[in-house]
């Protein structure tokens, strides 16, 4: 048998890689199918629209209502799909999670039903005159526009995303997960369907099955994946990570808000599959990765400037962001305190408490991954993208080997690129 924490690679063919995460501690099983593309202006909105249109219906269940009626009968099985970006990869995900056989009184072979459903959604869309149903494409295009416009509603997320987009302006990472309004305008039903045909045939696919499954279930999934009509798959490019900063950019956006949002975007110049990356994980945790961190202790606890303040890594593109919600007039003072923390960490002014607490916090976070099927799948997918063979336990070990001096060394590679601020009209800064 396999270790509980291990994703086992079952097979690889036609640009499809199948993994199984065997575990019996959950009450559900899940199947995730991922398609990968390079994040580009030309494809971002099309890729985002494909799952939006496919989830409207397939030949057998041609509407949201039909899908919902069917999933209700499968004991409240949950299904969803969408897009995210990891670095400069755009990832299109199809997900289904269903209750394990042992909690079902009737014998209905639920794994087979769930997998068949997911495949029907992906490969048998509702067609009209040899194309996607126009009504679905038009409605989903409108809704995606609303989604893009609605980004501003949550200022906390918006301030983080916009800051990193500004850091990477002109690079693929600067493209929003759903593309842009201009791109959406230009997509018609026919283009989208043609794009879909290419999508299905040529994008690399990763399939993760997790849970308490029988070997014959895995065989069934493998055999059916083999039946998908595939061509040669495209190459996925690696993101450019080492980029020099000439001059720190200042970007300000104005909204009618009460609280200012300050985000600082950095280039870490560190590759996720490099041994240096483990030092960066520790650096980030000491800086702003929790209540033990320098930012929390100083910006919040000591100075009372903020309720929330944190730093976070975007490992696939080698970025880091610090973000906080503050009084607008406290912008300069907050930047000053943040700079002081950055200087201290670079000088190696790190207390034993900060070091130990950061180490333990990382260990706790990584070990917790094993308690969630979705997090386990995300962990192994991320490892696969970055070509890292490390299991969660190995990551913990490698971080443990990083010293205070290592943290101070890595600090020298982390360069401030952009200061992003949300302000209002009332107060002059």
């Amino acid at each position, binding site marked *: 048998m396999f270790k509980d924490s291990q994703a086992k690679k079952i097979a690889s063919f036609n640009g499809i890689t199948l993994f199984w995460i065997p575990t*019996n*501690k959950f*009450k*559900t099983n899940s199947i995730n199918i991922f398609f990968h593309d390079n994040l580009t202006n030309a494809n971002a909105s099309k890729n985002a629209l494909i799952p939006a249109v496919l989830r409207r219906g397939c030949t057998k269940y041609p*509407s*949201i*209502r039909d*899908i*919902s*009626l069917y*999933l*209700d*009968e499968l*004991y*409240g099985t*949950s299904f969803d799909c969408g897009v995210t970006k990891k670095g400069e990869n755009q990832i299109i995900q199809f997900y289904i*999670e269903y*209750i394990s056989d*042992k*909690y079902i009184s009737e014998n209905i072979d639920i794994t087979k039903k769930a997998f068949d459903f997911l495949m029907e959604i992906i490969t048998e869309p509702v067609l009209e005159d040899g194309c996607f149903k126009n*009504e679905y494409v038009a409605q989903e295009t*409108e*809704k995606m526009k*609303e*989604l893009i*416009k*609605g980004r*501003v*509603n*949550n*200022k906390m997320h918006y301030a983080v995303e916009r800051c990193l987009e500004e850091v990477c302006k002109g690079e693929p990472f600067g493209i929003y997960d759903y593309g842009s309004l201009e791109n959406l305008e230009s997509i018609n039903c026919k283009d989208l369907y043609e794009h879909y045909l290419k999508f299905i045939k040529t994008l690399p696919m990763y399939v993760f099955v997790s849970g308490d499954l029988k070997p014959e279930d895995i065989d069934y999934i493998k055999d059916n994946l083999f039946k998908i009509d595939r061509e040669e798959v495209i190459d996925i490019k690696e993101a450019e990570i080492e980029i020099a900063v000439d001059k720190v950019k200042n970007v300000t956006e104005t*909204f*009618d*808000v009460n*609280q200012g949002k300050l985000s600082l975007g950095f280039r870490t110049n560190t590759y996720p599959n490099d041994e240096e990356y483990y030092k960066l994980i520790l650096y980030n945790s000491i800086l702003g990765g*929790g*209540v*033990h961190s320098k930012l929390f202790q100083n910006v919040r606890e000591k100075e*009372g*400037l*903020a*309720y*929330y303040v944190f730093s976070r890594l975007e490992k696939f593109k080698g970025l880091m962001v610090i973000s906080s*919600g*503050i*009084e607008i007039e406290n912008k300069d003072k907050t930047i000053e305190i943040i700079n002081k923390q950055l200087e201290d960490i670079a000088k190696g002014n790190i207390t034993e*408490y900060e070091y*130990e*607490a950061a*180490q*333990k*916090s990382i*260990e*706790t976070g990584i*070990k*917790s991954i*094993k*308690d*969630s*099927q979705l997090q386990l799948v995300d962990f192994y997918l991320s490892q696969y993208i970055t070509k890292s063979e490390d299991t969660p336990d190995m990551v913990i070990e490698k971080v443990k080997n990083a010293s205070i001096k290592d943290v101070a060394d890595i600090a020298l590679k982390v360069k401030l690129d952009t200061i992003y601020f949300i302000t209002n009209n009332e107060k002059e800064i």
Partner: protein
Amino acid sequence: MEIKTINYDKIDETMYLYQHKSGLKVFVIPKKGYSKKFAAFGTHYGSINSEFVVNGERVKVPDGIAHFLEHKLFEQKDGSVMDKFSKLGSNPNAYTSFSQTVYLFSCIDKFFENFNLLLDYVQNPYITEESVEKEKAIIGQEIRMYEDNPDWRVFFNLLDAFYKENPVKIDIAGTIESISKIDREILYKCYNTFYHPSNMVIVVVGDVEVEKVFQMVEENIFKSEKDIEIERIFPKEPDEINKHYKEQKLAVAMPLFLMGFKDVNFESKGINCLNREIAVKILLEIILGRSSDLYTELYNEGLINNTFDFDYSIEENYAFSSFGGESKDPLLVKEKVISKIEDLCKKGIDEKDYQRIKKAMRGRFIRQLNSVDRIAHMFMSVYFKEVNIFDYLNVYDQITFDYVEKVFREHFNKERLAVSVIKPIS
């Protein structure tokens, strides 16, 4: 030590219960094979308890004090207790809701050291005038953050539309003005009133030694039997709603709305409160869930998008349903919901829909038991209603179509429908 064991064979779960002499009840729900261990220590005291009688004295405290006290409990004589948890590698946290305050941590190792810390700091407040003043700045920023959060605003504006007097309409954190009146003395008064073990509960979820949990409680809870009587005072709330419509402008891209029905004549304790919750949730699915005609119509006409969601809340002195999301025309959504309900009143509810949705909701309930955090949070959210989370299984087994039909006729009364809308500024 007397330990009660309850087995839920159908879903492979067991719950252990022990009662301390102070009246404090302690529950353990073991989760074999999980890395994470979770403990929560909660008190039946939240933002709505701003007026009470204790030892014959009637007290009215500033809004936001339960939440303020939650922040201050982390401070100990020898520094912040957060640091001690951090040294152990655990994640401490706390939250204040309308009717409870909960202190919790999750950890991987050294569960009992963490648990000991939790028991210790929640029982030993150390509040200084200086630290109270400093906290006003931090909570001030928390309040400012929520002022700009449209989801939060649309929710509280709906509560304001429902209720004329009920303190549930007041923001949990209070206002910058109300918290300015908070001082050390008044915080201690609230602490001494509501943090007696008999008013509290502990739940532990995870792969832990059950008896050792109870042993540690036995040895570390130092108050004995109940020494105070608390009378919670709530203003009288009429059945009718405060206003049918409330609107606010914020920096959003498109309007968002939340609407719902104010509930009256409900039992807020015991299994009947879960029955009502499940009945209304089944009905909401039937009326506007993804398998309904109404959802299809609203979605296709561009009146709702994927942000659309619905819920039902039932607590000790209030209950309401709510549904909403982004919409270019919230009032048209309202008209369509009303006409669908009128239509269902005439035609009646289809029993097949009821059966199917009940089956799906039961499955989704079982799925939630995958998460240690989720179990602990769900446990806390129902416990002070004198039920436990596994009682939901009985509800699904015993609820009847007749009952759901009866609740349909009681709850969905358009006289008690209120709408809250957030509109873009320009």
